[in-house]
């Protein structure tokens, strides 16, 4: 054999191509990388859990005949007008500014058809989304962009945002290309600035102050509206306890996989904890305070399928929230956009430059021409379809576990495929009765 062997190139596990590319990019530009979306690396997730369908020792429900309820009441601890949703999948807060007005309208339409709520974001309430959303949650963020008492009174619930899973401890960001006249006007900002939002609320620090702040908002709205507190998962056990003590009606817990419109890549990938291990800590905190199911828990961060919904609820959540998946349902990253995405250095299935406003799907943009591409009625229909599928899937799994309501799923319906996920989710490793981390 005289032919030369093709040499095998060895890629460094430490300095892999992505790491090299990032060093080169940093050296070129002198600034950190900013992008949208959530954590891209693999972290323990709902895929690492399995549901135990019934057989002999448990009794399943008839798949197409027997009822499996899906409704959920949020905020009945103190609010005079709690929210009653038909399905336990809500649309997470995404700002007008990050998203086009058409996208916000489409989210409102889809959510309303499906019988769930949608949420404003870091930028105030638009008439488009208020008009189309039967249940609208109004975010109260550190920046207080567009915050005003008239919209507060128009909201169905108020969500005090302490953090986001993509960036617990970090403030919002919206780059200049998206600060158009309308967005700037709503945020009282000069047109075209790179907006940096505060990471701390301007007028309170710590849980004792938060209690007074919650009381203020209740006073302003005459104790009608549920008050949610949204936490980016990092120390959920303590944060949930403090939020409940401060008077929250509902806790929204966002894991590290949670999407963002624009954040430093290093933040997205390295700060916070996966939703899988955040839920048991939150549930434990609620149970210890005798508040589980009294203060509702909404969880988010990488929810894609009805299986994710069912597993999150089995772990003790009352509902889930979706961000990224809702955008995909509207048409984000659609294969039909592949050519256009390639022209801007990405491809369908990979696009995450939601910060720069060039989204060919017309969703994460303020460019009027691009925004026109998204038909809010068609977008709303697609989202409603997707939400229906999520619920049908979750019901299928719940019935198989013998549950007549999604809220009846419980941790005993779950096992874990890996040691990590068993320890984090606090359910036994499949085929054993061993829960790592719970003593021997």
């Amino acid at each position, binding site marked *: 054999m005289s032919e030369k062997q093709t040499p095998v190139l060895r890629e460094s596990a430490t300095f892999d191509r992505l790491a090299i590319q990032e060093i080169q990019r940093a050296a070129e*530009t*002198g*600034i950190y990388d900013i992008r949208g979306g959530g954590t891209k690396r693999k972290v323990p997730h709902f895929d690492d859990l399995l549901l135990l369908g019934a057989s002999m020792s448990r009794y399943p429900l008839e798949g197409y005949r027997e009822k499996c309820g899906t409704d959920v009441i949020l905020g009945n601890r103190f609010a005079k007008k709690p929210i009653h949703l038909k399905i336990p999948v809500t649309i997470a807060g995404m700002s007008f500014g990050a998203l086009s007005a058409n996208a916000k309208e489409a989210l409102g339409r889809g959510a309303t058809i499906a019988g769930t709520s949608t949420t404003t974001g870091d930028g105030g309430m638009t008439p488009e989304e208020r008009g189309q959303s039967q249940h609208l949650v109004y975010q109260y963020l550190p*920046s*207080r962009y567009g*915050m*005003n*008492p008239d919209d*507060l009174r128009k909201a169905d619930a108020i969500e005090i945002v302490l953090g986001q899973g993509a960036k617990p401890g970090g403030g919002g960001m919206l*780059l*200049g290309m998206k600060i158009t006249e309308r967005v700037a006007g709503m*945020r*009282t*900002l*000069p047109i*075209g*600035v*790179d907006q*940096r939002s*505060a990471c701390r609320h*301007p*007028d*309170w620090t710590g849980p004792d*102050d938060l209690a*007074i*702040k919650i*009381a*203020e908002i209740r*006073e*302003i*709205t*005459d*104790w009608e509206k549920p008050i949610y507190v949204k936490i980016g998962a990092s120390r959920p056990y303590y944060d949930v306890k403090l939020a409940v003590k401060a008077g929250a009606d509902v806790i929204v817990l966002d894991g590290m996989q949670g999407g963002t419109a624009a954040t430093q890549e290093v933040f997205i990938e390295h700060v916070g904890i996966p939703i899988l291990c955040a839920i048991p800590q939150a549930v434990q905190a609620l149970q210890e305070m005798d508040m589980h199911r009294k203060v509702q828990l909404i969880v988010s961060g990488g929810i894609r399928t009805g299986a994710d919904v069912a597993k999150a609820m089995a772990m003790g959540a009352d509902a889930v929230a979706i961000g990224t998946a809702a955008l995909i349902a509207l048409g984000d990253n659609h294969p039909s956009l592949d050519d256009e995405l390639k022209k801007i250095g990405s491809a369908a299935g990979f696009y995450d430059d939601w910060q720069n406003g060039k989204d060919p799907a017309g969703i994460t943009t303020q460019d009027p021409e691009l925004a026109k591409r998204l038909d809010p009625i068609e977008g709303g229909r697609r989202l409603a379809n997707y939400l229906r599928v999520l619920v049908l899937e979750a019901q299928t799994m719940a019935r198989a576990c013998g549950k007549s309501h999604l809220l009846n799923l419980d941790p005993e319906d779950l096992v874990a495929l890996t040691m990590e996920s068993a320890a984090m989710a606090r359910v036994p490793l499949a085929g054993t009765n061993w829960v790592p981390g719970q003593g021997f």
Partner: protein
Amino acid sequence: MKTFDLSSASVREFNQALHDQAKQLEEREWRVSNSGGKHNLAVGVNQPLDIVIDGHAGYYCAGMNQQANITVHGNVGVGVAENMMSGSVRVKGSASQAAGATAHGGLLVIEGDAGARCGISMKGVDIVVGGNIGHMSCFMGRAGRLVVCGDAGDALGDSLYETVIYVKGSVKSLGADCIEKEMRAEHIEELRVLLDKAGFDVDPASFKRYGSARQLYNFKVDNASAY
């Protein structure tokens, strides 16, 4: 005039009575006694009422005010007139932190001193302080005017957008991207009107003007050390 004694009535009853005026105006003048430093007094009012609070108020007094003129004969806690939209709030004593935080409009007058973060994230309100203000005041101020007849603490106007700051006394230090600017005739004039409105007899020409250098509006490598 309607009077409310907060030693017997609750804050809830008081605020509800004020809110009911938005549906049907029955009484324009309100006077509150025994405020006892209670939190959330006269929040979310949305009518041109005249409200006088005799005594100290706690956190968020006059929060999110619309249209009403509210006077406090005492000191106020954190976040007086936070997110005010219109109307006016006058504090005869001093104010704690975050006075006028994020407020969009109206006039906030503090006759005594204001603590740290006065006018933080303000979005169009006019704030006039008779005494001194604490550190980090006007952080990320977006719009409106902050007038200080005394001295300002550290890091005044850090990361400022378009709020204009006038200080008569000393400024301990300026925050990132905040600079002193020329005091031209039109500034003296606008300040004269504002001081008049606030009821202060001080020479507007004795103030210095501060504003944003606008260097941090867009991310630039050369500014990395300022972030």
